[in-house]
């Protein structure tokens, strides 16, 4: 801004206002694609699959359907992949379907306080937008909400100026016979294998969602089916009202503006968890506000809102209810892991629900050992948040940090000096469930370092590690005993031959007698680690 322009007698604000305009969603996306998980080409594919699978799982669980998800990736040309994700979920009602897929920030879970995978309503529409921007092709979506009703098919794009869906084709689809939703996208992406791949993401998703059946067909037509490890849906997490300890200023103002309650007192009691009549009065008194005032009036008084926020912290309020979380549970984690890995040992831990900043959370840990887990190198860490595997930024994650705080030598594991994780065929999986998982960024790659959460993770992992340590030391003992028994068997063969030469008795008979007495009466001393008796040592006297 130069002084020449200000001399036009028009206020600066008028000038500035001329420049104000709605940023198009395309621009918004381009500026924020890294935050939304669309940075590298391999990652774009994973993010797209992840968003669709997250939605499918959430929708199935909400409708008490055992999820059956099919994913197919094909190569269109060197640049473009064709991705199909199909589920047996409840389907999307015809009138909202275009907006669910064709409008950013449109969703049903944004305001709900409970454990769910998707939250912002940005995921799948971001994938649609990315596909459209890189391939120019519309998303093709089919959905059927009831076998008695026909399936309908849409081809749609997002209008990047208005953030509204633009329908290109709309028709009934006679071939889509079962209930569910199918989405097909063409986008610029790369298919890779390895630790950070679609396959690995789906495998880990299957482990932590043992009630889901997931089928994947890769660009080479290779089919992988992750079968269900159980036929029972997880307990549906209960939706709760926000807890005063977790609320933010802006949200509170919005709630005050839009509430149906006529009085501040009833607003507080009705809109928040754990605020009863007595607590409400204490809060109002502490904030020096009249419980009978209109909530909308308070919304205009930022100072008053701040006072009430302070009162939330000062007045003792019960912890939030805990049934809003859905742990996988130890048994199912075990089933999930063993369905997908051959392991020699597995231990699972489900910690009780805890609260951090008004948000209930709980930690579950799995440690598996041996079997088909890679024996070379460091332990593999698998991070899960609300049943969604986290694939990126392992080093920035509180789960990793908590694991690195542990001295693994205490659990009979090898940990070279300075190494952060133990060595050997070990898999450590941590599941963090919360109504609000604190991620380090919007791309939801890593859990932020919050001391209460890190401590719980460490406790859970330690508990599982103790089991592993016990198992390993028992293994070692058993191995030692086996070695000793084998040694005695070899000695006894040799001894029997010597005794045959001394006495003329048959060595086979002698050997079997020795074996018998050893097994019957003296095997105990092999097991016990007591100090063996010292044999006499003759003196040397200068000869």
């Amino acid at each position, binding site marked *: 801004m130069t002084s020449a322009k200000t001399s036009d007698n028009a206020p600066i604000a008028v000038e500035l206002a001329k420049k104000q305009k709605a940023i198009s969603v395309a621009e918004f996306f381009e500026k924020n694609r890294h935050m939304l998980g669309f940075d590298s080409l391999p990652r774009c594919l994973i993010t797209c699959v992840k968003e669709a699978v997250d939605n499918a799982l959430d929708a199935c669980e909400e409708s008490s359907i055992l999820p059956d998800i099919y994913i197919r990736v094909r190569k269109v040309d060197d640049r473009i992949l064709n991705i199909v994700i199909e589920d047996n979920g409840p389907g999307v009602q015809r009138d909202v379907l275009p907006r669910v897929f064709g409008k950013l920030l449109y969703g049903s879970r944004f305001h709900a306080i409970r454990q769910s995978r998707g939250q912002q309503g940005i995921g799948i529409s971001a994938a649609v937008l990315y596909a459209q921007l890189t391939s120019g092709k519309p998303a093709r979506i089919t959905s059927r909400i009831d076998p008695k009703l026909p399936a309908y098919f849409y081809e749609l794009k997002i209008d990047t100026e208005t953030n509204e869906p633009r329908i290109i084709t709309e028709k009934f689809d006679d071939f889509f016979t079962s209930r569910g939703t199918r989405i097909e996208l063409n986008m610029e992406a790369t298919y890779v294998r390895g630790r950070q791949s679609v396959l690995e993401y789906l495998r880990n998703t299957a482990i932590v969602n043992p009630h889901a059946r997931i089928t994947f067909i890769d660009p080479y037509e290779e089919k992988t089916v992750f079968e269900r490890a159980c036929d029972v849906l997880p307990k549906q997490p209960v939706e709760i009202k926000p807890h005063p300890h977790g609320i933010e200023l802006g949200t509170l103002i919005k709630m005050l503006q839009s509430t149906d309650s006529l009085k501040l007192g009833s607003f507080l009691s009705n809109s928040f968890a754990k605020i009863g009549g007595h607590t409400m009065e204490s809060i109002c008194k502490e904030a020096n506000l009249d419980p009978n005032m209109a909530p909308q009036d308070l919304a205009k008084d930022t100072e008053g809102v701040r006072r009430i926020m302070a009162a939330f912290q000062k007045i003792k309020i019960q912890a939030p209810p805990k049934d809003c979380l859905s742990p996988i549970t130890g048994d199912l984690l075990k089933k999930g892991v063993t369905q997908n890995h051959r392991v020699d040992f597995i231990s699972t831990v489900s910690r009780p629900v805890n609260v951090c900043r008004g948000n209930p959370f709980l930690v579950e840990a799995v440690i598996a050992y041996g079997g088909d887990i890679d024996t070379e190198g460091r332990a593999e860490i698998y991070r899960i948040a609300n049943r969604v595997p986290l694939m990126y930024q392992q080093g920035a994650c509180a789960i990793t940090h908590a694991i690195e705080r542990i001295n693994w030598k205490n659990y009979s594991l090898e940990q070279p000096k300075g190494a952060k994780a133990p060595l050997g065929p070990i898999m450590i999986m941590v599941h963090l469930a919360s109504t609000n998982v604190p991620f380090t960024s919007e791309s939801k790659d890593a859990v932020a370092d919050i001391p209460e959460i890190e401590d719980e993770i460490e406790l859970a992992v330690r508990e599982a590690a103790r089991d592993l340590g016990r198992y390993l030391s028992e293994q070692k003992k058993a191995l030692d005993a086996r070695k*000793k028994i*084998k*040694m*005695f*068997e*070899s*000695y006894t*063969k*040799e*001894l029997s031959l*010597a*005794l045959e*030469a*001394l*006495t*003329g*008795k048959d060595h086979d008979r*002698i050997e079997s*007698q*020795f074996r018998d*007495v*050893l097994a*019957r*009466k*003296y095997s105990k*001393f*092999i097991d016990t680690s007591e*100090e*063996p*008796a*010292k*044999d*006499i*040592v*003759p*003196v*040397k*006297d*200068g*000869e």
Partner: protein
Amino acid sequence: MASRGQEIADKLTKVGESVLKDIDDGKNPSVDITMRTLSNVYFDEKTGLIRLGDEKQKRYYFNLGQAKKFLQTMLIAKQIKILLEQNKPALSIRQLFYTLKHEIPGAGENTFDIQEESDPIIEDVELMTDSLREELNLIATPNGVLAGPMVVEDKTGDVLDFTRMGSAGGAVPPIVEDDFFHIKEMSADYILVVEKYAVWNLLNQEKYWKKNNCLLLTGKGQPARAERRLLARFGAEYKIPIYVFTDMDPWGYYIYSVYKSGSINLAFFSEKAACPRAKYLGLSVKDVRDFDIPKSSWVKLNDEDYKRMEEIAGYPWFKKEKWQNELADLKKFGYKIEQDALVSKSIEFTANNYLPTKIENKDWFD
């Protein structure tokens, strides 16, 4: 097989049978091992011998610390039995070690790795069967040589005249029992044992044994079993004086005591391998002044010497006043003197002057 050999073989069979009986009874198989520690050794003043007590320890098979030794004991016992029954030539203890050393199938280890493992077990077996290694048809390599008026018929049938053994002398064979080493004639007036071969050799070249009509023997330092056993035989079979001539230091004194009373480790062997009649001729601290041994041939006693002197002074067989005085004098004197150093007087001094004077003046003690 000689009947003594048969007797020992039978004892070995009994050892094996007692092990089988243990296992028949469902017990932990064991053998009794006589302890060969200082605590189980005592000095028998009456006989002047170091003897072994009766303290025994059981060696068990079903015991992690003892299993291998138990196996090794049985291996050695059976091998000795086989050697005795097949009437094979005597083996050295090293050769016995090699006949038994092999990998135990499946155990990933050898029956024996080093000879130091088998040697003490051979001694255990000697004690178990109340026999001597020589009777077990085992030999330790002897070093000894001798010369003098004696004629011996060897096991091979060869007749050896020890006055005709040249400058090297006649070798002491590994086994000196009568059936191996039959003494046909012996006309020496006394026997002189010399610690070191170099001194023995000088005396032999000067025909000391001829001039003095004596038998001249050396074990080349610490004597092996054969030299000790031979001296014991001389002591028992011929009523002639026996003198020991060593360095003037605790090591020399101890060599004398081994000839005379036996050793701690082979205490069970003393009866047959010690000669309590043996007298200490020299070198003694008193000789330094008596013979005016020049200071140039004195060597300062070192820490190890002092330590060994302390040890020896504590042994019951050194408790005699004479020896306590000698050790005290040596300590006060502060120097040791080697036998060889007497040549500083003159080459012939030992043969022509020192030894005849000492013997003539009966200047010895025990």
